[in-house]
């Protein structure tokens, strides 16, 4: 009796085990197979698509009816303030690439006037052609940096301030150009200093358009931190959140503020001071224009990062240099 019981139990166990194993094998076979979810998803999908289509149509209708009202209003109103973007640039391998992708961003921004100032004794054909092909409204200037102020080949980036003469030249041209225009003194406009290797989202331009005096916002990947930003309390800037020399009058990056055209015209002497110590370049301009409590915080009370201080690596040219030493370098006529 006992052995039969045991045997029965044994077979039961073995059977059980085999069944479980088969079930496991079946489950493993199901892996990687597309499951038959269609009967669950499709009706929901269809309803949602249909509703969304209707919603969009209604929104479009609303917008169309608004648009028909607006032209009447806009005839009386002026066009939105122009953003004057001053970009200093200098010849190096990645220059064309940087200016190309910068122009691709700027093409999306309405009422933008790009002022490109080359660090060069004369305008280079590379930049000239690029600006012509870009389709943007632009002004092409040039202003060479004095030799003793210029960074040499092995110098680290922070040794001498860069772009000072070029930005000042941009300001000078702008002032001259506005004065030459009738009613230029009271024209609406915003000036933004945009370096050619940073990254700009399209929102930052919309935020800065409403600048009355000087507006500020956070900048990502700068100052040795993920972002630097002004600290806003009660709608006013009270101090700056930065890891490097926070005692500066305006401890922020060039990409973190914009100045209204009116303010620049009203202060004809305001410009960047090339003799200022490291990191005080921005302050050297802003000190003469505005105080901290007059700053206008943008980007949702300075809580969003809309511009990043990216830097592009210098491409490795070891093989190129070796070839050029042999006299068989790449065709210099091909513009890079």
């Amino acid at each position, binding site marked *: 009796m006992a052995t039969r019981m045991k045997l029965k139990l044994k077979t039961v166990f073995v059977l059980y085990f085999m069944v479980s194993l088969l079930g496991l094998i079946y489950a493993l076979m199901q892996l990687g197979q597309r499951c038959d979810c269609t009967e669950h998803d499709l009706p929901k999908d269809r309803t949602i698509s249909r509703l969304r289509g209707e919603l969009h149509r209604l929104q479009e209708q609303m917008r169309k009816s608004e648009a028909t009202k607006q032209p009447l209003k806009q005839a009386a109103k002026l066009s939105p303030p122009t953003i004057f973007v001053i970009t200093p640039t200098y010849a190096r391998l990645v220059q064309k690439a940087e200016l190309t992708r910068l122009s691709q961003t700027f093409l999306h921004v309405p009422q933008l006037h790009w002022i490109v100032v080359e660090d060069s004794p004369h305008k280079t054909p590379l930049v000239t052609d690029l600006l012509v092909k870009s389709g943007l409204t632009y002004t092409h200037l040039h202003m060479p940096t004095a030799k003793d102020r210029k960074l040499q080949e092995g110098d680290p980036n922070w040794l001498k301030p860069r772009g000072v003469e070029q930005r000042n030249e941009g300001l000078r041209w702008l002032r001259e150009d506005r004065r030459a225009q009738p009613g230029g003194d009271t024209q609406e406009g915003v000036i933004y200093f945009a370096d050619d290797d940073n990254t700009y989202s399209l929102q930052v331009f919309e935020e800065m358009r409403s600048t009355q005096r000087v507006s500020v916002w956070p900048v990502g990947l700068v100052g040795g931190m*993920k972002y630097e*930003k002004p600290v806003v309390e009660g709608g006013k800037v009270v101090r700056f*959140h930065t890891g490097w020399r926070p005692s500066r009058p305006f401890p922020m990056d060039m990409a973190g503020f914009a100045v209204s055209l009116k303010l620049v015209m009203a202060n004809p002497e305001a410009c960047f001071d090339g003799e200022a110590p490291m990191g005080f370049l921005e302050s050297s301009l802003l000190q003469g224009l505005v105080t901290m409590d007059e700053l206008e915080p943008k980007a949702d009370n300075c809580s969003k990062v809309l511009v990043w201080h990216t830097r592009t*690596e210098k491409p490795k040219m070891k*093989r190129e240099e070796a070839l050029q030493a042999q006299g068989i370098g*790449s065709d210099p006529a*091909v513009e890079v």
Partner: protein
Amino acid sequence: MPKRRDILAIVLIVLPWTLLITVWHQSAIAPFVAIRKERLTIRHHQLSDDRVEGRGEAGGQAQDSKEYCASDKYIVEVVRTEYVYTRPPPWSDVLPTIHIITPTYSRPVQKAELTRLANTFLHVPNLHWILVEDSQRRTPLVTRLLRETGLNYTHLNVETPRNYQLRGDIRDPRIPRGTMQRNLALRWLRETFNANNSQAGIVYFADDDNTYSLELFEEIRSTRKVSVWPVAFVGGLRYESPKVNAAGKVYGWKTVFDPHRPFAIDMAGFAINLRLILIKPQAYFKLRGVKGGYQESSLLRELVTLNDLEPKAANCTKILVWHTRTEKPVLVNEGKIGFTDPNVEI
């Protein structure tokens, strides 16, 4: 003795069931886990509903939400294709679609890179961006960014197993960065499009830190099989380019680094017609055992011969794409505990 048998019996009972249950959690056996699947589906639709508000003029909209129930050990894929027409990325019926495959991974400059890439792509008509993240699940940063751009996109993800990335020994060589992601995108294309009746398309592998001129995309559009062009800043040179003879055929490669590779070209230097991808479904990038610089060859060799290559960019004399690399930002002032608010997205 009986005790041991009892233990054996219990083990024999419990083991298969635990295995089965763990497997169930991962995979989806349709008839049995219908309820769980429904919850998953609903969650997805809720996510996409937030997208609707704040849109500009919309020509039309179709949402094709497909859910992938596949679950490999390494690949967990969830696919959401959204076709949203907001501001003109114009869409024409005659232009072939350019499918851009971009692998990406999380690092501080990721959002900046993708932002400026999106600003470039917004100028290109009939563009479909396939962004594949190297992550376990799709990150909210990329999801939100893609939604806000208004581009046509497909958001995929697959995680490269960590040990493959870190180790450098010959026996278990690293999977080159981005390979699994590009292969996943190729697989998605093959499963989405049918070789017989698909719309004309071209596939281009675009890394997120390069710079692309708008002219490049127009040159790509006329690709019949595989087209090639020069790329700047690769191989330690000002640019690398294919050698084109007087008859307009590619016969070699103007590079210093191993010009005898079957296809001595950078990922950004070629584009493939979608048809070719679909009729050769076994062609993928080789995952392992690939020498440096041979990755592109591992795919192209299965698709085309040197003779079939079409030179673009004025017979490969103009530079339309630059292999720029972005510096890793120095975050020294963050310190050990982080100085800045981690909730602010950069």
